[in-house]
């Protein structure tokens, strides 16, 4: 029937055994690759473990309640309280601006953005800011806030520069969280006669909350450790003593004022390393770095934990 088909006429030779290894070389290469790829995973864990161990050991005997709650000093093993305070202050200030802005932008990008020039421009801007070096964003803050606005080095200037730097990240994380909400949820709400905004407000946003919170915490982690943006915006230096009862927001001495120089923990480490000659330089940096790493760990694990708990609660309800 199909004599012209080259399929016909298969030589019937002796059947090879299945135990014959196809090609020794390729099997060996496969094993080698598997070992090497596992090796990369193990390497990452080993490096991370070594880093954590390194700082745990370095911080041993340095980090104590008096270190965390003491005032800085170059001649003794001083504390980091004002610096830690500045880090938290700038973090809160930045998140107060960046989170609402980022979430609003994220909603726009996820729910409204059409295929038009404005969307393309926003995406391009988002990608551009993400790729601009943090030091350049810091320099931009230097021109804008320190010089043009005559704020000098200020916590607010630093926070705004940090907002510029982290807005794309916050927007992208918010957009991802919203996009993860199934389309059927939106359709169901719209089919019930809800307007688009009502749908977003009452259906999409509540469902996206675990993802949004994870996004906020991840952004916070990055804000907390950033130094290059702050070097030339919120300033470098060693604050001596903060009187936390000074609520005069116009006073440069008040720890509550946004218009005062505010050295954060990361900037402090850099500054100590560049200029510090004090006898306890190494210990202070080790202790500060250990605190930074501990907080980063808390942020990361916290984001994971809260995200998981909220998701479980939402899906269980």
């Amino acid at each position, binding site marked *: 029937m199909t004599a012209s*088909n080259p399929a016909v006429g298969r030589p019937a030779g002796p059947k090879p055994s299945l135990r014959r290894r196809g090609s020794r070389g390729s099997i060996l290469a496969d094993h080698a690759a598997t070992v090497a790829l596992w090796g990369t995973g193990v390497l990452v864990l080993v490096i991370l473990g070594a880093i954590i161990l390194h700082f745990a050991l370095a911080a041993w005997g340095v980090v104590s309640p008096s270190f965390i709650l003491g005032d800085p000093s170059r001649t003794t093993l001083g504390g980091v309280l004002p610096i830690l305070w500045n880090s938290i202050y700038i973090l809160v200030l930045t998140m107060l601006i960046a989170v609402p802005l980022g979430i609003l932008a994220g909603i726009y990008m996820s729910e409204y953005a059409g295929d038009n020039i404005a969307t393309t421009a926003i995406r391009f801007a988002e990608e551009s800011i993400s790729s601009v070096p943090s030091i350049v964003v810091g320099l931009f803050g230097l021109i804008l806030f320190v010089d043009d606005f005559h704020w000098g080095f200020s916590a607010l200037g630093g926070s705004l520069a940090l907002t510029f730097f982290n807005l794309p990240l916050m927007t992208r994380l918010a957009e991802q969280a919203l996009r993860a909400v199934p389309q059927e949820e939106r359709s169901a709400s719209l089919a019930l006669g809800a307007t688009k905004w009502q749908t977003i407000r009452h259906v999409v946003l509540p469902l996206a909350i675990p993802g949004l919170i994870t996004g906020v915490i991840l952004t916070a982690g990055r804000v907390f450790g950033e130094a290059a943006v702050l070097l030339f915006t919120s300033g470098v230096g060693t604050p001596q003593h903060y009187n936390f009862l000074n609520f005069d927001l116009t006073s440069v001495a008040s720890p509550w004022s946004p218009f005062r120089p505010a050295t954060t923990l990361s900037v402090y480490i850099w500054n100590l390393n560049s200029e510090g000659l004090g006898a306890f330089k190494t210990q202070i940096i080790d202790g500060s770095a250990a605190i930074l790493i501990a907080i980063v760990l808390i942020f990361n694990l916290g984001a994971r934990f809260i995200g998981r708990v909220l998701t479980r609660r939402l899906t269980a309800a």
Partner: protein
Amino acid sequence: MPTTVAYPEPVLRPIEVTTSQAGADEFAARTQDVKISTDRVSILYGEKVAVRDVSLTIQERSIMALIGPSGSGKSTFLRCFNRMNDLIPGASVKGEVCLDGENVMETDVSVVELRRRVGMVFQRPNPFPMSIFENVAYGPRRRGQNDRRKLDELVETSLKRAALWDEVKDDLRRKSGLALSGGQQQRLCIARVLATDPEVILMDEPASALDPVSTLRIEELMRELREAYTIVIVTHNMQQAARVSDVTAFFTMAEDRAGYLVEVGPTGRIFTRPNERLTEDYISGRFG
């Protein structure tokens, strides 16, 4: 010598079952030896039994169709012939699956060698994102065949066997496999399997994503390929099973949702005089 073959346009035919003595004789002449045999094969996903105690034999150079309702485990069963179930975490297979009398389930069997001898065509055509030529040459190249002339020859023969050569010979190396139509993609996938010189070809609903004309084209191809290969096809489409297969095995689901083999026999008999009530109900459309 490979020659260019003109393939007739496939025609839609009514369901036609070979029950004649001539058909049976032709089958008997074509096939003598048992190619695959299974002995009490059970497949589990974790604790859940997906397929229970299937024993059957498949003759060399024949087409065996596995039919049955969704969830009856026929695709899962098919995948134990080339141990694709190994790739699913938590899946385990009990019992024996023998290829030419050798149990493929044993731990020292090389799955790479097994899968070369037992090729597979999937439900959705899955050409690689590379040229048509590279798609077909992919398997041989991985086995160390880098001789240009031999590869050219192999690709041409495979594409001819898969009845695709005439349509693609002009831009073999320029056109991406993804640029072909659905039916052409599926024939490309068959050519890709043929190029690795398999003895058995497993087809998991190879035509269910295709239009009727492409479907008939693939069936035509299967009838040609059975002259040289052992083919096992899983299909939802009973007309298809009746049109192409020599032997049909009917699977269904037990009350615990585990699939099992109800009966197996010559296609002509299964479709006209099934032994089991369940088979008759399914074939006549009273079930599934």
